[in-house]
């Protein structure tokens, strides 16, 4: 039996032992313990080392605000998590935990040398210590920062858990299930409103769990709690969620909750998510988050065994643990007296209650005297001793603001209280304003920015009775605002402990304040002296002080440190608190896993993958894929032993010599219908459409209003009032959005409807001299001869028995057709063509071969050969601009001075003097590679390939004044060499287009 466990106290199951390990050593706790409470029950206060100085540290708190006791937890292979708060992690059999920031062991840590070198690590040390000598940066400082810039160690294997998410709409969300939250839920729940009550703890009750001596409504506090929680559980319209932290409060009452589902379980249910991120949309929000206790700021206030008094009370009453058998209490607030009494009543020999105030209520001193506790008012504490746990403290009488002669008092724990800070993090997320109350030295909520209510200690009301009343009223107010009717109950409370106190800065000391290690931010090792130094070095904004000292930037986000830091900074600045202001509170309220944010979207669900109806065939036939927008497209079809280049060379040869088959289903398709369809097309595209006959196609060029090429594609006229528009794969959504924008907002008078039909049609392209020979036997309802169905035609006919939109078009320069059939027939048509195509050695090809074949013909790819600053003329495509048109989108911009000016970059071809050299895409182009740097860059290579057809490399490029440089030599500097190129036209293959006319 441990000396610190008190069987008569606590809500844990004393008869249920649970073993876990801490740094390899087996520790026995009880069911219901946290790692911290179990360690404390075994007399272990030392739980970790601090971040900067590697000072030994123990738990200072009992909840999620804990800055010191961060541990690594391991459930099983892959289930490792760093920086878990030992005060929150519940124990279960087999849990492995380890301390952090220590080597070789927690008790003997090499990094503690930093503590001796503390002069180097004062405020702003990042900016000072590491400035000189410069040569130290790579070898000394950077490795040090890298090692130090992160707590714990990252997991090394993929997280085997999965995470869930959920949206929830409710009338009233209540954050925090302490007395105020429960009273609010009771009042709101009875109204019939849909209520959600969430609490970050493993059980609900908040401060009631730590105050079993209070009587509510004639019952003991815990019996009352159980009965009222049962009542709430019985209400169908009320949902209770524990282990659920409200991490952020966003616009219009959207609150993010992170619910931990499995971290406390002994065995994991099959397939259960580890955490669930809730996105709550509430009509009304009630914040009943309570208050956080402030530490006192004095020399060596960070020694293991120094703890918040309220937390010690919680360890006793919730977990049955005395954090010390011979504690001393130091306080400026009444609440610590009650903690002292509870510990004394449980068997602790409280050595003294040291109060910084001159006077305390006589009831308190009487109660202390009754228990034989020595009372020292108007005293301060000026230091502590003990290597890994506190052994004694120095206590000095106060003479005004000076400390008198010290007395040393032995102890095994020091319980402190510097008063309480209302927890206003979530309220501040909403941009609600705060007001400073000088009496209590606390910020309280002022102007609201959302439909929310704050009740209880969160707005500075201490004591369970006040919290219950205030919570009930908030419940009524919220229900009323949400359109429901209810009344609040009255809650008579006996033995309530309301308490008052004062708030202080650094405590007076009889030693040199310059040597005091009086910590404010325990995790980041920021001391009071650091704050004053920052101010004296010119940091006058509180946001600068925060960043210079790193105060409040630890994983507890300043829960422990902000108020003390602000008070001291205000004092150093000689300004009232209100003029100094507050640093910004930002979500999340407590550290939240990436898994929770990612939810379902990891692994194969990370991104949506669009697949064509022919995708399966490509996969079965060994295609390599590439992502294009959200699509995955067959990139090339390697045969055994082939790499990309060999496969593409073969695919190019086969297509040019006989027949290639290509899945073009990803091309965007938009149906433009209506009596004004042609007028709409005239206004959108550069080309003229009025005279395009039914069953004919035209290459269309789409500009932005700024005159730059935005998209292109072949457009077929299906009837007088219907066009089948194709867009680039990646541009489909953008083009439809732009067309809808003009149609709906600029030309709402046009009778036109736009419909995306990308998904309706599977598109199979056949290219090569045998394309017609293969296709013709399958086609019904269309004469396939060159005369009846010439290049740039479209027909609605039947192919292989499927209704089809058949285009005769070519993106390769070969005789080409594109067959569109309803998507679910795509695979069947493909297989029909594949089977029949064997007589022509039909070759499936992918996007890479498509790119090579089109580049040989000088066809551009928007987004590759253009970059959003290329006009039709720049691209050599003035022929696509209707000369007689008076307006189309982008037309006016084509005569803007910069666009009409000479010397713009123009699209040209490049042929390397050494035909085997393939240029790098994106490489810059210069006139003279010997010119001094920085060189004048004339343009860049946009497309570059090995052309199997031509037996040499070909490239497209944009070059300043390119069309005036035909035949000139330019240079492309590439790694290790300057490649000489000749400027040419953009068409490298079959410039007469003879092959299209077969």
């Amino acid at each position: 039996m441990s000396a610190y466990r008190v069987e008569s106290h606590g809500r844990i199951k004393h008869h249920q032992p649970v073993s876990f390990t801490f740094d390899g050593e087996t520790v026995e706790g009880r069911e219901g313990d946290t790692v911290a409470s179990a360690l404390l029950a075994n007399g272990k206060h030392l739980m970790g080392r601090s971040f900067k100085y590697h000072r030994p540290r123990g738990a200072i708190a009992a909840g999620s605000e804990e800055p010191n006791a961060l541990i690594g937890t391991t459930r099983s292979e892959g289930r490792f998590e760093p920086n878990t708060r030992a005060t929150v992690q519940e124990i279960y059999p087999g849990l492995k935990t380890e301390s952090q920031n220590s080597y070789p062991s927690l008790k003997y840590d090499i990094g503690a040398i930093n503590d001796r070198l503390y002069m180097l690590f004062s405020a702003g040390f990042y900016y000072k210590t590491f400035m000189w000598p410069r040569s130290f940066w790579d070898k000394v400082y950077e490795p040090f920062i890298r090692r130090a810039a992160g707590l714990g160690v990252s997991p090394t294997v993929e997280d085997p858990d999965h995470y869930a998410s959920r949206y929830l709409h409710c009338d009233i969300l209540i954050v925090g299930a302490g007395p105020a939250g429960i009273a609010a839920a009771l009042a709101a729940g009875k109204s019939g409103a849909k209520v959600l009550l969430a609490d970050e703890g493993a059980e609900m009750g908040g401060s009631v769990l730590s105050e079993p001596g209070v009587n509510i409504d004639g019952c003991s506090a815990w019996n009352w709690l159980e009965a009222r929680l049962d009542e709430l559980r019985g209400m169908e319209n009320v949902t209770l969620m524990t282990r659920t932290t409200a991490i952020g409060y966003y616009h219009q009452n959207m609150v993010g909750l992170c619910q931990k589902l499995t971290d406390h379980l002994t065995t994991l249910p099959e397939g259960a998510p580890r955490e669930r991120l809730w996105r709550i949309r509430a009509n009304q929000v009630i914040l009943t988050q309570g208050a956080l206790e402030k530490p006192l700021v004095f020399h060596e206030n960070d020694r293991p065994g120094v703890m918040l008094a309220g937390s010690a009370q919680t360890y006793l009453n919730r977990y049955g643990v005395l954090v010390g058998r011979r504690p001393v209490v130091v306080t400026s607030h009444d609440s610590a007296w009650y903690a002292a009494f509870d510990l004394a009543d449980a068997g602790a020999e409280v050595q003294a209650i040291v109060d910084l105030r001159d006077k305390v209520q006589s009831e308190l001193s009487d109660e202390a005297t009754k228990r034989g506790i020595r009372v020292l008012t108007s005293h301060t504490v000026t230091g502590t001793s003990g290597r890994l746990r506190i052994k004694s403290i120095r206590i000095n009488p106060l003479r005004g603001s000076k400390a008198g002669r010290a007395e040393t008092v032995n102890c095994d724990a020091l319980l402190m209280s510097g008063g309480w800070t209302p927890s206003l993090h979530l309220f501040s997320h909403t941009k609600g304003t705060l007001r400073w109350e000088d009496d209590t030295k606390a910020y309280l909520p002022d102007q609201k920015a959302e439909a929310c209510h704050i009740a209880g200690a969160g707005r500075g009301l201490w004591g369970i009775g006040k919290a219950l009343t205030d919570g009930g009223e908030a419940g009524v107010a919220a229900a009323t605002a949400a359109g429901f009717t209810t009344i609040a109950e009255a809650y008579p409370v006996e033995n309530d402990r309301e308490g008052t106190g004062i708030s202080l800065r650094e405590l007076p000391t009889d030693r040199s304040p310059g040597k005091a290690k009086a910590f404010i931010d325990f995790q980041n090792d920021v001391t009071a002296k650091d704050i004053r130094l920052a101010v004296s070095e010119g940091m006058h904004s509180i946001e600068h002080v925060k960043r210079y000292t790193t105060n409040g930037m630890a994983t507890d986000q300043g829960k422990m440190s902000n108020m003390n830091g602000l008070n001291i900074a205000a004092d150093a600045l000689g300004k009232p608190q209100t003029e100094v202001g507050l640093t910004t509170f930002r979500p999340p309220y407590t550290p939240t896993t990436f898994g929770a944010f990612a939810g379902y979207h990891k692994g194969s669900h990370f991104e949506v993958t669009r697949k064509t109806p022919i995708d399966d065939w490509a996969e079965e036939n060994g295609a390599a894929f590439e992502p294009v927008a959200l699509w995955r497209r067959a990139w090339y079809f390697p045969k055994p032993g082939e790499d990309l280049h060999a496969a593409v060379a073969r695919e190019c040869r086969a297509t040019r010599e006989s027949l290639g088959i290509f899945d073009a289903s990803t091309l965007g398709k938009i149906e433009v219908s209506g009596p004004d369809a042609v007028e709409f097309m005239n206004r959108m595209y550069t080309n003229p459409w009025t005279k395009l006959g039914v069953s004919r196609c035209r290459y269309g060029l789409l500009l932005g209003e700024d005159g730059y090429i935005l998209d292109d594609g072949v457009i077929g006229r299906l009837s007088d009032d219907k066009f089948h528009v194709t867009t680039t794969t990646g541009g489909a959504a953008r083009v439809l959005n732009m067309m809808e924008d003009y149609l709906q907002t600029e030309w709402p008078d046009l009778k036109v409807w736009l419909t995306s039909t990308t998904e309706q049609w599977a598109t199979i392209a056949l290219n090569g001299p045998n394309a017609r020979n293969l296709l013709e036997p399958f086609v019904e309802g269309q004469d396939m001869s060159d005369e009846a169905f010439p290049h740039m035609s479209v027909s609605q006919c039947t192919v292989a028995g499927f209704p089809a939109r058949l285009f005769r078009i070519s993106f390769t320069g070969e005789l080409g057709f594109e067959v569109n059939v309803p998507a679910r027939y795509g695979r069947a048509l493909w297989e029909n063509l594949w089977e029949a195509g064997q007589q022509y050695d039909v070759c499936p090809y992918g996007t890479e071969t498509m790119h090579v074949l089109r580049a040989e013909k000088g066809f551009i790819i928007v987004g590759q050969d253009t970059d959003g600053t290329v006009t039709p003329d720049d691209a050599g495509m003035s022929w696509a601009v209707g000369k007689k048109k008076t307006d189309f989108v982008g037309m006016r911009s084509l005569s803007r001075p910069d666009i009409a000016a000479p010397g713009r970059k123009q699209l040209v071809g490049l042929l390397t003097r050494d035909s085997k050299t393939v240029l790098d895409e994106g490489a810059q182009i210069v006139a003279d590679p010997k010119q001094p740097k920085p060189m004048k860059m004339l343009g860049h290579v946009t497309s570059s390939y090995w052309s199997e057809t031509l037996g040499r490399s070909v490239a497209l490029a944009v070059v300043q004044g390119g069309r005036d440089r035909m035949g000139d030599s330019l240079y492309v500097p590439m790694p290790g060499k300057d490649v000489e190129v000749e400027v040419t036209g953009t068409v490298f293959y079959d410039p007469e287009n003879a092959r299209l006319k077969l």
Partner: protein
Amino acid sequence: MADAIEKVSPLHALAEPGRFGDTSGEPGVGLSERLCDSLVQVQAWPDSISALKKAVKSVTGASIKPGNAVATKGDVVLMSTGPGRWLVEDETDDLEVRLRKAIGADIGAVTALTHARTVVSISGERCEWVLASGIALDFSADAFPVGTAKLSHHHEIGLTIHRTGDQAFDLYVVTSMVRSFWGWIARASAEVGYTVS
């Protein structure tokens, strides 16, 4: 040739019948896919809405309802997808042809989307729970009554959602993304247990 055998469902490899996810209790939801026989979009001009409604009635026998209320009659389903725009579904294979005949260019536009959408049906006690796992709409019966349809999305995947019953929804999913959608909804259903039929 163009018979049902040739229509390959985009989900054929994924949606195998069986019982999946948490198998400890009754399955929370049932999932299935459905390929529409005919799904056709009709769109009216601002001055021809009543003419279009009349035409739809003459072809299908069902009357378009106001707002997002869905009209169903036999195998016919009529859903609004925006001002002046409706989806018409039935189990024939010539709905597009019939609508096109009744709705000339003077009345509106007719576009077949039969193959552009794949319907994923979800039913069962936990179907609201599963849908709310990834779609931001309020699925409670007050906010989303039976017999109404809403448009939404999940993770870039456009959805038309028809509440067909108290515990049943039909989701019309963009075909090329239905495999990704199925991956998500199966994952989200695993926690409550699901069957595929």
